[in-house]
């Protein structure tokens, strides 16, 4: 990361982004607007979403589901993960179910839960938790297993208090796994939330996406997607990734890897 390398890096990044928009514009010119709308009309639609007052009620509904789902799923994932990481028996007990849920298309879970619980918000939260918990649990279980056995043994030999062992040995070793789990769980949460809203929502970003889909309004559909996904990507990359980097700054080997 010398000062000379930076402008060139920017140039090539711009080449990528510019090329993408050129391709998009070209495709928009070659096809009717309802097939590929030009970037300009999508941008206009995005502005329209914010000025029409449709953004906040739908956005807040989705965020509520994501928030509740995340808290429940993350807590559940941590508890399950710790149990699984400590005991091979419980690992065997839960492993198949977690793996199956991982492989099970999220939409199937959504459809089944919707049929059983109806169209309310409890459906959304249940589906979100069901799909997100395995990602948390499996990552945390790996983290528990990655805890340095020798340091733990040493802490016990020197009679270090449990709370201090937790804070100084276990948590630092598990931190990367905790954060990875948080990122996975968050990403699953918002994806499932949109799925639920598309299948049987009455409000929310997914519901709006479905509405635009049904009236074949491509520009508006893309506008809703872009607005929401830019937001979620920002949360994932800027907030969660920043937290990861900061909490791992003391670890030399990881720092080298993120710098590359």
């Amino acid at each position: 990361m010398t000062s000379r390398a930076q402008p060139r890096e920017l140039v090539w990044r711009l080449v990528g982004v510019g090329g993408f928009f050129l391709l998009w514009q070209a495709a928009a010119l070659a096809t009717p607007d309802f097939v590929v709308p030009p970037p300009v009309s999508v941008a206009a639609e995005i502005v329209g979403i914010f000025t029409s007052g449709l953004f906040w009620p739908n956005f807040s509904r989705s965020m509520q589901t994501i928030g509740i789902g995340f808290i429940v799923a993350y807590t559940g994932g941590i508890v399950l993960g710790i149990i699984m990481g400590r005991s091979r028996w419980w690992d065997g007990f839960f492993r198949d179910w977690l793996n199956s849920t991982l492989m099970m298309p999220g939409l199937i879970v959504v459809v089944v839960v919707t049929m059983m619980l109806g169209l309310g918000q409890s459906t959304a939260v249940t589906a979100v938790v069901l799909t997100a918990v395995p990602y948390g649990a499996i990552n945390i279980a790996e983290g528990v297993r990655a805890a340095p056995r020798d340091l733990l043994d040493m802490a016990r030999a020197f009679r270090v208090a449990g709370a201090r062992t937790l804070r100084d040995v276990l948590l630092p070793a598990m931190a990367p796994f905790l954060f990875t789990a948080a990122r996975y769980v968050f990403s699953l949460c918002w994806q499932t939330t949109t799925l639920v809203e598309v299948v049987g929502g009455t409000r929310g970003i997914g519901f709006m996406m479905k509405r635009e889909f049904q009236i074949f309004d491509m520009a508006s559909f893309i506008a809703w997607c872009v607005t929401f996904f830019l937001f979620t990507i920002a949360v994932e990359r800027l907030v969660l990734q920043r937290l990861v980097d900061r909490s791992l700054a003391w670890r030399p080997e990881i720092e080298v890897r993120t710098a590359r």
Partner: protein
Amino acid sequence: MRRVHSWLRARRGVARLTSLAMLLTAWWVVVPLVDTNVVPTLGEVAVFMWDEIRMDTLAPATLYQSFATTLGRLAIGLSAALVVGMTVGLLMGLSTRVHLALEHFVVVGLSVPSLVYALITAMWFGFGSTGPILTAFMASVAFITMSTAEGVKNVPTDLLEMATAFNIRRSTAIRDIVLPSLLPFLFAAIRFGVASGWRGLVIAEIFASASGAGWMVMYWYDARRVQGVVGYAMFFLLFALLLDVIFDKVSAHVFRWRPALGARAA
């Protein structure tokens, strides 16, 4: 040592069986007690699944036909994604410029849910096979690209330099150094590609198709037959477990030369 190992494995097997048995019992006992018609009983689902297996079904396509349709689409979408993803990934791994230009798109591509692809392709191509195939392609291509690019960077440069120093032929170097270090990444790419391609495909079939395993779920959903939806979910589960077993076997075989991984897989 070996004895302890097999004992632990047996105990794990017991744990797995216990959890399966407990779930089935809970389902068997609890559901008939709750007076509801939206949660199917174990019997209803079992009968449904058995009927489907015997090809005695009310639906327009049998279990085997719809899974064959879906698997065919997955095969086409995934092979295309492998070709494109590995090519782009190699370019990204070899050239910093390409990497800089495309990195953002891979990151965004990784996070865009398949639902978006499914709905857009449905608007473009209608309810045929093209939409689902494209969705499977889009759902897996970003991960394959990223994984390949990571793999190329992971090739041990010191070994390559040594190979040059000792005048080892290029083909030998590629076969013995580049490929073995790329292989785990490729394998992860294919495995994850199958999983996410499969998920995307099912989403596309549910929203934007009139055939395939995903569409069958929607068919039973529209028919308000819960046992159909749950039964098909079970078929998906069985299929997923089967895939997992196959991948584990292949992985254990391919990576048997790696002591660390081999020990973990066993």
